[in-house]
């Protein structure tokens, strides 16, 4: 985060965007989209998180290294989630394959 300072106008713009997105996520939650509920909710939350990270946390103006660290944290979280869920989601399939009930 070099001495580059972000002007308050951008901060307020981001603030408004975040409030709008919060409203949007509540509104979409009121309607049932079946299997798409979670993906929609998570993508809105991801967008809000990206706004906070890039502007509020100055990652947009930071060194490549800081950006890499920011990305690495979420990437390892993804590793944890994907490989753990991969076990739970395929258990029934495997059980059926081996031991027809």
């Amino acid at each position, binding site marked *: 985060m070099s001495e580059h300072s972000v002007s308050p106008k951008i901060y307020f713009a981001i603030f408004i965007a975040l409030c709008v997105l919060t409203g949007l996520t509540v509104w979409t939650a009121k309607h049932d989209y079946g299997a798409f509920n979670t993906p929609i909710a998570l993508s809105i939350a991801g967008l809000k998180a990206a706004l906070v990270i890039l502007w509020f946390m100055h990652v947009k103006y930071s060194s490549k290294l800081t950006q890499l660290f920011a990305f690495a944290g979420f990437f390892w979280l993804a590793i944890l989630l994907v*490989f753990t869920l991969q*076990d739970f989601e395929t258990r029934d399939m495997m059980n059926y394959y081996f031991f027809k009930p």
Partner: protein
Amino acid sequence: MKSTVLTPPAPTPHLAPEAKERTTYLTADYGWKSWLFTVDHKRIAVLYLISIMTFFLIGGAFALLMRAELLTPKGDLFEAETYNKLFTMHGVVMIFFFLVPSIPAVLGNFLVPIMIGTKDLAFPKINLLSWYIYVVGGAATLFVAITGGVDTGWTFYAPYSSTYANTNVAGTAIAVFITGFSSILTGLNFIVTIHKMRAPGMTWFKMPLFLWAQYATSLIMILGTPVLAITVLLLGLERLFHIGVFDPALGGDPVLFQHLFWFYSHPAVYIMILPGMGVISEIVACFAKKRIFGYHFIAFSSLAIAIFGFLVWGHHMFVSGQSAYAGMVFSFLTMLVAIPSAVKVFNWIATLYKGQVSLETPMLYALGFIGLFTIGGVTGLFLAVMGLDRHVHDTYFVVAHFHYVMVGGMVMAFMGGMHFWWSKMFGRMYPEAMGQFAAVVIFVGFNFTFFPQFLLGYMGMPRRYHQYNEEFVILNVLSTAGATILGGGFLMSICYFIWSLKWGKPATQNPWEAKGLEWEKAPTPPPTFNFPDGERIVVTEDAYAYTEEEAHDHVAAGVKK
């Protein structure tokens, strides 16, 4: 207050001739305050050395008691409860308080700033905080051990640990939770230091491979330890407030605990072995007086092990009820993570080719490491193969495998590293002949102890058994005999190390004629700011430039200096 830490005897000032009038980091200040409130990374390394060796001896004592119990098939030396507490404390103390911190906190703390040519780590106060957290966690664990112990195994598998064990699991969970942060802070310090504080000219590919290994280890410490912290915290919550997160009665899944636990604990075994590999690269290059073979390949394989290490934890759970599909994926990725380790071993051997090999103690440990780590690594492949793991999981085959990698690999590298840099840390040489003898005793005692366990494992003797069947008795007696030799070897080396503090031969700046800033630029023992005052460190040479002159000489018509 700090029951485990004793202030080291400040060595009397008859140091190396030129060191007499020069103040070193040891003689810069006296009194316990100068030690317990120091921010000098070298002093913190010495503090860590003392606390780590204390825990190594405690863990080793537990191990010898266990081996004594297993001398006879019937459980006649200890109650089953006591034996279970012994193997649990042996696991917890050895892993969290010796294997994970030892090389990074002792050799890493001492050498990382010197090797990159800077005065100290990025965050000196956080470095001291890391040691205090380690000591608080250690004191808490010893308190738990004394006031009743814990008998869940170092893996704390739910639901036994969360509901059915009636020993002090919550206390151990909190102690491990605290100690995790010591590891995180050390890792954080190293990553930032290596990124931001390298001396001018010290590019990434001019850095010694020890630093690459420390950097890769720190990545794992940063990315893995927090998940252990949260897992152990959830376990503590479940025990203290009965909020069943892993409780099968509520629909919770004990296998989820295993997923979260092994997400840290498998990369943790790479935290333990990678620094050892870093030390071996340094020792092999120095004692073969030859450039390391395949520098870039060794450096990148350290990173590859660190990153791939996070994708393989499921091979601990092939028969635990994990879906076979997930098992297949984890088995495949475990095969991939084995390749970088193999590449490293082959590169070390290629370094010996056409070198000028001298077999002092550090080199004996390094060559021992290469042999034993190969056996350890290859038996890991046995366990990564699903068809075979169904037979050998949770047997002594697994115990033999990880002891070959941890004791045959990590501890041999730690001993090699201590012998290699001992003169730089304390200005004294250890007794060479005794060093070589102890190395051979440890090598023999180690193989005597753990090779029979491979056979026991395939014969089907399960782990963590207080008593076993008659047919396993011969191999167990062999193993116990080996354990006493191994224990003797370690005690011997600790004795002559302490002896050398006062009566060891004063060491010159570069006793091994090694390359690297810590040998060529930093005096023995280094002053508080590592390099003689006012000396701007600018790095020009490549790492391990042992044959630079010879290369130039060929160019300059072969005149040898």
